[in-house]
C-alpha cells in the first residue's frame, strides 16, 4: 500500500503567490511563486529566516490568509482537488480534519477560558460527530498518546496550568485527533528549551512512523530539520531557492545563500583555525515590498555576476532530487 501511495503526491503546490496590500497601495509579495509537493509519510522541512514567507505559504495552503493579505495566483492540489477553488464550507471540512496545524506559540494558540478536555473534544465532535462523552474519552486517550502523565486530571485543567512543553503536546494531540493525512507544524519547538524540544521532535517522529502522517515542518533551525526531516526546501524572499534531501543539508548545499548560512552556524571549531570568527552574511534580509529585480539574493551574494542583477534565475534540477535557483548552475 505504501509503495503506490508514495508515487502520488499528497499535496502539490504550484506557483503559489500570496500578497499583502500595504497602506500606500504598495504590494508586499510574501510568497512569490512557490512549487512544492509532499508525498504520503514524508516529513518535509521548510527553512528560512524570518520574513522569508514560510509561514505565509503554510497558512495559504489552509486558506487562513486574511485581508489585507490574499492569494493572488497558483494552485494547492490536495489529492486531485484544488483547495483554492473550494467553497468555505468545504474547506472547513478539510481544515483540522485532513490537514491540521500546530502553531509556534502554544501559549496563545490554546483558548485560556476552556479546559484542555473541552478544546480537544470540540474538534472531534465537529469533525467526527462524536458525543461529548465519547469525545472526552478519546481526549484522554490522545493525551496518553502524546505522553502526558495523568490524563484524567489534565483534561479538567486550563492551559495556564500546563508548562510550555505540555501545551505543545496538547496542540499535537489536537492536531492528530481526527487522524489527518498532513500536519503543518509551524516552528513547533522554537519557544521551547532544548530538552523539551527533543521530546517534541521525538514525538512527531513517532507519530509519523506509527500512523504514516505527513508533516510539513517549518523552522529556522537547520539542526531541527536534520534531526527529523527527509526533504527540505530553503526559502528566501518568498521563493524556494534550494530543494534537496535533508541529509545533504550540511554536506552539499549549492545555493550561495544556503552555503553561507551553513557556514554562519557555529559548528565545532577546528583546532587549526586560530580565529574564532564565524562567516557572516553581509547585509540584511531584503524588504519584501521593495525587492531587487534579478536574483533576490544578489545584493548579499559573494559570487554575483551581471546576469544575476538583471534576470531572476529559475529553480532548476541539477541532480536527482536536488533543485537550485541560481545562475551559477544554469548552464
Amino acid at each position: 500500500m505504501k509503495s503506490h501511495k508514495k508515487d502520488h503526491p499528497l499535496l502539490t503546490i504550484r506557483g503559489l503567490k500570496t500578497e499583502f496590500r500595504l497602506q500606500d497601495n504598495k504590494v508586499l509579495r510574501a510568497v512569490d511563486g512557490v512549487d512544492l509537493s509532499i508525498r504520503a509519510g514524508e516529513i518535509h522541512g521548510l527553512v528560512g529566516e524570518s520574513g522569508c514567507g514560510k509561514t505565509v505559504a503554510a497558512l495559504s495552503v489552509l486558506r487562513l490568509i486574511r485581508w489585507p493579505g490574499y492569494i493572488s495566483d497558483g494552485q494547492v492540489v490536495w489529492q486531485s482537488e484544488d483547495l483554492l477553488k473550494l467553497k468555505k464550507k468545504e474547506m472547513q471540512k478539510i481544515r483540522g480534519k485532513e490537514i491540521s496545524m500546530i502553531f509556534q506559540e502554544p501559549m496563545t494558540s490554546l483558548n485560556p477560558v476552556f479546559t484542555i478536555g473541552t478544546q480537544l473534544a470540540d474538534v472531534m465532535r465537529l469533525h467526527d460527530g462524536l458525543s461529548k462523552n465519547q469525545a472526552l474519552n478519546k481526549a484522554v486517550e490522545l493525551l496518553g498518546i502524546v505522553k502526558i502523565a495523568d490524563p484524567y486530571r489534565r483534561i479538567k485543567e486550563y492551559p495556564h496550568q500546563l508548562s510550555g512543553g505540555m501545551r505543545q503536546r496538547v496542540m499535537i494531540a489536537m492536531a492528530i485527533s481526527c487522524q489527518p493525512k498532513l500536519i503543518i507544524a509551524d516552528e513547533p519547538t522554537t519557544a521551547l528549551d532544548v530538552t523539551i524540544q527533543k521530546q517534541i521532535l521525538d514525538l512527531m517522529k513517532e507519530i509519523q512512523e506509527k500512523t504514516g502522517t505527513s508533516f510539513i515542518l517549518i523552522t529556522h533551525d537547520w539542526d531541527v530539520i536534520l534531526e527529523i526531516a527527509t526533504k527540505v526546501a530553503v526559502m528566501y524572499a518568498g521563493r524556494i531557492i534550494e530543494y534537496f534531501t535533508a541529509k545533504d543539508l550540511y554536506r552539499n548545499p549549492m545555493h550561495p545563500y544556503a552555503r553561507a548560512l551553513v557556514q554562519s552556524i557555529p559548528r565545532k571549531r577546528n583546532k587549526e583555525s586560530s580565529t574564532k570568527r564565524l562567516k557572516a552574511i553581509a547585509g540584511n534580509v531584503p524588504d519584501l515590498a521593495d525587492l531587487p529585480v534579478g536574483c533576490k539574493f544578489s545584493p548579499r551574494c559573494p559570487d554575483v555576476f551581471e546576469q544575476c542583477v538583471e534576470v531572476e534565475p529559475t529553480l532548476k534540477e541539477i541532480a536527482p532530487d536536488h533543485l537550485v535557483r541560481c545562475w551559477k548552475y544554469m548552464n
Partner: protein
Amino acid sequence: MLEIHELEMQETLIRTVNLKKYYKLGRRYFSGHSAVLKALNGVTLNIQAGETLGLVGESGCGKSTFGRLLVRLERPTSGEIYFKGEDISFYKEAILRPLRKNMQIVFQDPYSSLNPKMTVGDIVSESMRVHNLYPKSEIDERTIELLCLVGLTPEDRKKYPEAFSGGQRQRIGIARALSVKPEFVVADEPVSALDVSIQAQIVNLLLEIQEKFNITYLFITHDLRLVEYICDQVAVMYLGRIVEFANTEDVYKNPLHPYTRMLLSSQPGSDFDTKLPTEKIYMDVPSPLNLPSGCVFYPRCSQKRDACVKEVPILRDFGLNHQVACHLIN
C-alpha cells in the same frame, strides 16, 4: 591544586561566593503565606580577566538573574560578589555608580532595551555624559567613533531606534555598553532574538571587540553550539545552582553531570548521543517555587540514589578545574 594555580596567570576579575537571590511573591489567597521563588541558590563562581565564560541552562534556571546580580542591577539576598577583589554585593547606588562604567550589560531583546524616544546618538552617549568621561565637545566625536566601530554610520546617530532592524539595534546596544570602556560585559542572550544570518555578524562583532579592548564576557545563552564555539569556560546551571563547571572542551568531550549530558544529547543534529549514555528526558523542569529536596535534578535523573533525595551535592573539583555537583561521581 598547585599546578592549577601556576597555570592561572590571569587574575580573577569577578568572584561570587554562595550567591543567593530570592524573590518574595505576593501572598497566596487562602494560606496567607507568601511564596518565595528561589532564583539563585548559592552560586560560587570565578571569572578570569579576558576570558569568556558561557552560562547555559534551560529557561528559568536563574542565568539572567545571575548576570543582573553581577552588574548589580539587582541586590543579592545573601552571598558576596567581588569585582577585582572589592566586595560590591551590598554597595549603595551612590558608591556603585563610579564602578558601573567597568561593567556593562547587553540585553536579549533589542526591541525593548532601547528607549524609542531617544535618538541613537543620545542612547549611546548618555553613559559618557553621566560619568563625565569626556569634555562636552568631544562626546559627539566619540559617539561617531563608537557607531563606526559597531558597523553603523555617523548619520545614524540622529535617527530613532525604530529605523533599525533587530541586528542593527543590537549593534546600538553594544555601542552603548562600550561607550564607557568597560572591563566586564554581561551578554544576556545577545543573539537569540536575531535571524541566523545576522547572529553570526553580531557574534563576530562581540569577538572583535573583545580582542581590541580585552573585555571579559559572561555569555548567557541557551545555544549550546554557540557556547562551544566562543567560550573558554562553561558553567551549567540548573534551578539556581551550578551543576558543572569546566573548560569548554572538557564539558563537551567529557560531560560528567547527568543534566549536562541530557542537555548536550538534546541538541538536534548533535553527535554527542552516539558516544554518550543518552539521558532519557523524564519530565519538565520543576517549579523554582517548590524546589525538590536534596539534588535539584533528582526527579529527572535516571540514576538517582537515596543520597540524592536527601543531601544537596556540593560542587567538587575532579581535576583540571572540572567541577561537578553530583553524588554519583567519585
